């Protein structure tokens, strides 16, 4: 099974990688820390499962690269592109925020879940609220991983 994790938070990425390796021992895991690299891996590598963050920079941040435009709804844009490019991976959103965007565009995680379930039926498996200080997210993600495996 090929799993892609698109996540710009190093700590969260470490923990997601750890959990995935533990749960799916034979899985091949690749990582991207930004929209552009994530989309390219999706297009070229065609993973079976995607663990996707919602907010991310355009390019991976590093020395001499500030990351380009920050994308509050980068995860949603990735989903949109997956549908357009007919990339059929199952997607689990893993986010540590329960409010997204600013001003009139702002929405809660519950609103977002509902929208994603409707708009990206067939791709979207579910969303996990990641709280680094709690362990619930791990159980939730395990459930989602099972759900994704079953529905493959």
């Amino acid at each position: 099974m090929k799993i892609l994790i698109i996540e710009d938070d190093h700590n969260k990425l470490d923990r997601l990688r750890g959990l995935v390796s533990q749960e799916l021992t034979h899985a091949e895991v690749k990582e991207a820390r930004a929209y552009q690299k994530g989309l390219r891996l999706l297009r070229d590598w065609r993973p079976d499962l995607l663990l996707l963050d919602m907010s991310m920079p355009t390019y991976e941040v590093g020395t001499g690269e500030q990351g380009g435009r920050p994308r509050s709804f980068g995860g949603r844009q990735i989903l949109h592109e997956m549908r357009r490019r007919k990339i059929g991976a199952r997607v689990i959103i893993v986010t540590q925020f329960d409010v997204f965007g600013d001003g009139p565009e702002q929405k809660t995680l519950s609103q977002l879940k509902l929208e994603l379930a409707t708009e990206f039926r067939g791709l979207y498996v579910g969303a996990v609220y990641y709280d680094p200080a709690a362990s619930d997210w791990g159980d939730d993600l395990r459930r989602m991983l099972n759900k994704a495996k079953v529905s493959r």
Partner: protein
Amino acid sequence: MARMLGGDGFVAPQGRRFAKRTKYQPLLKGTARDSTRLIKTLKVDDTHAIDAFFMQASTSLRKELLSEPCVGRTYETLVVPQVALVTRSLSSEVRWTILSLLPYLSQLVLHIDLNAQWLRCVLLGDHDQAHEILERIERDLGVSVWMINARLLEAQRRDELTANRQVLGEICEKLKSASITMLAELASQRAESRIAYSTYLDDVERTLRPFGEYRNLASSVSWWRHWAAPFAPRRTDSDCEILWRNGLLPAIDRYVGLVRVLHSRVDERLFPTDFLPVMKHMARELQCVDPQLAHLLVAQDVNAEWPMYCSNHLNLSDLIDLYTEGAYSDVMTTATRQLLQYPEVFELYELVAASVTNGQLSIQLAFPDRALGNDVISAMIACMRREEGTRPLEVLQRIATQLHGTRFGAQLWGFIAGQPQGPNGRNDSALKGLACTQITPRFSLLYNQPEDVQRFWVHLEQAAGATTTARLYRAISTCDVSAIPRAIPASRRYKYAGQGFLAAGRYTEALQEYSQLSNAAGTVVPLFETAAVGIFSATVELGLYQLASETVVDAYRRNPTLIKAMNLILLAQRILDDAPPPSISWPIFWAIVDRDLETSGKLGAERDLKQITYDALEDFLGHHGMQFPSELLSKSAEFDQGHLVSLLSMVCTTDILDYSPDYNGADHLEQERIKLCEALLALDPSNASSYKAEIADLLRSTALRRTMKEIDSTKIHVDLQGLVDNLGQSYRERYDRYREYSALSEILRTSKLVFEIDKPFGNVANAILRGLKKSGSTTQYEDIAYRQAWDLFQDLLLRFISSEFGLDSYLSARIRHGVLAGQLRSAFEQHRLITQWSSHTTDYGPNVYWSDWVMSSYDDVVASKVDKHLKQLSKTVDAIIEHLKRGKIQIKSKVDGEGLFDFVYSIERDGNRIWNMVQTTTTYYEFIDVLIAELIARIGINLNSVAQYVRTDLAAEFRQALDAVSRSIASEHPSLTHSVLANSIRQCGTIIHNNLEIVAGWFVPKGGASALSIDIDVLCETVVETVKRMNPTYTVDATRSMPVGVALAGGMLSSVFDLLLILLDNAVKHCNSTQVEATVSAVVVGGILRLVVSNIFHGDPAFAEEAAQKLSNPAIRWLDPDALRQEGKSGFYKLHKILRYDLRQGSSYSVAAHVERHSEVHRFSVALEMNALAVLA
């Protein structure tokens, strides 16, 4: 018993009996103890009560009680309601205003008449007469706000700015009112002949903005804005405020406000309700001088009584018919002649402008030079021909605003609003009809219901007969194309036929007509535009989406404002979920939608239009087997050149291309855009200047990033050249001795040493004896050459790490001084999670941001605890940074030191290795090179440790700090777990990781100083950007003044950066305000480079002067290097170190600081002068 006022239905049904028993009796008798409360009650009472009260009130009572005095000497005077409070009911305020105005009708009639006479004079350019009329108005009626505007305009037209300013001074002196002075200042400004309307509007907003902060001044602000910018978009809920205030002279100023408010509310169908009777009464009284109220009534109810036009003998209908029939030349000649007699009749200007445009005639100006009428007509023609050079729309907007309070001004604004490039407000377009000189067929456009339109035709034919124009409008309104009069010229027949077919739903025929119009339009711009809009509408309805999109793209290229008349949303909706085949026009179409249309909520679920635009581009490129837009350039001949230019200029921009997965980063993306802009220079030469500017911006942004990267990568630096050059003669002599000794045999170079173990004999002896833990004296035999080599290495090591050229001085200036703390703190400051330490309170400041935002909805105890946790976070973060600076980013020279730059060498462990290394060398410089190579290799090892430490240990420390604050805050209240504050803490976690990655990137080995030579302005911008990032809670406004084409030598880049960074960062930190205003300038004169950083200083100038004195103290220049780079001292000391050593200035430089004292804020400046030859490329 009913009594009528004027016989027009203004009836108080209960008459005097009502008044007798009413609670308002004390007001009528003048015995009320609380008249304000009673009037407030009355204002919201039913209409009968209000009418009855007015019927009973004497004229003097009405004037006394019902007119709100509002122009005071100070701004605050405006706030205090004197008599009748404003209500939120527009209907109530309209009624109240009309009733208040009734006692002033005779004044009003006189004013409107004189107003019209004045307007005629101004349009004709007869300024003497205009002046006399204004004198008469002032003498007979008094001063109104309207008149202040008129006087200033007349003065400006008469004798330019000098007269304008003189009159302004007289007005302000005479009236002594703060608010009127403000309005007069603005009126004076807009009367000026050169100011752009948009600039004027900006000034209005800038003037009013400070008052907006005071809630109790909101009403005054609405009223001021009404007078200063009557046609600017405003909140409709401010209409009550506008109606409520009298102005200077109620009879005039309130009437002007009433008419403007009613004009803008014509669609709201307020009229048939409660104030219709009083309005009818007023309309009838005024109809001869101003039929606008009567027109409003007719627009609301087609069966209302049409006004009598008492004094106007002009027969507009015949002239309009001539125009309709295409006799453009005749119309132009006649209308131009008539304008001399009726310069205030706006319809004549329209006829001249339309005839000149459609007939492609030469303009004949009607009036003498400098007459305002000429300005109007020239600008109208330029506007219709879409000649943008003179910015005709701006000219017209300014004139319409100058003529606020006249019918002409309203009609002119109606014309502006109807232009495709105009503000295009539906209500404002109606102004032309409502303020018209006479009701003509065009008035039919004010009706929405077909039965109203039919009824209108009946009335019009009764009044004016069945004219050609009336038959034409009627045919269009009934969609009866066959009824379009034959007399109309062919091209315009296509236009009207197209309109008729479109309205009748006969789209194929409409498309045919509009296509013919497009062919026949030639260079007549309005006809071409009408054709484009018609073709678009017909093709969308017919499902010919590809053709529709091409029409949009072509029309947009000719006139971007045209799309306002096209329903692009409809087309967007139809193709959104069923993408059409790839074509070059689709990405352009989506870019236009994204750029120019408000689509919020109109395209179903939330849509990212930039992404849709990119998708359409990718489809198009993919269809042609391409990945990047630059691949199009080699095949440009295959595409329509206009479309290609639109695609490259509007779609292939960085903000759309960054949706592509194929660019590796910002550099790659910008290189692609530069290629496209270079191609556009040839493809679209008319816009070459904007492409050149974009290329320059992109190159600058690339250079900025490259400089930033360069600066980051040279943070770890040792000035090897400086170090070697400064080893001195003694080092060389010691080397020579070593060489001599090492040439001797081993026996000859051995020496006997006796040491007292407990009495250390210097560092070297200690190092040698380490491990020999015997007490008492001991004897050792030592190889002197071996010892000399070790000593030379130790000496070099010491210089390498801590001399003025060594590593520690760079660690101090480039990392520990401000930059490190700035980079790490900024992640927390960006989310306002930490505050700053105050030496006054000896505590961290309260977190006002979160207290005001999130914590204000919690009780004080919780809020206070959360604030405490945030303070603790501030403390922890600063402690982590301090530990990093003082403990970790230090040179470790002792075994038990904490510094990560480990330069501990021992002779036991390293002696032989060093000896073996130097034995292979034969010359002095080889010897030095070998030792330096060893030290550089050690730096490499150290840097890896530091980077590793930053990525792991430091990251963990920050993570723990954030986790701890998260937990503490959540424990105060369960809902805080899911609050914006909690989200910000999480976001900060991601950002701090990124920042740590950047910091870790500083600790990479790099050979020598930068080889890049960089423009001094780019470097300066990099400094400004760095300071902004280091201080995210400050607003830094730094202007630069730099010589063009002056570049810094590569090796000097980082040092000049350090200089400027220290100065600007200090300016930010010590200016005593979060709004930082600074200037950075450079100049090269006579071989001297002079850099000046100055900033506005808030607070006690004595402190600044003390700092300036210290900084300019010549004694600092002679401090030894160690003193200059001491931690905890002023960053200014480091300036001297950088100038003296890094920039090779020795003592040939100067640092001068001074303070300019001003009344409130002061200016602190530091000037550095140095030899330019050593620094510049």
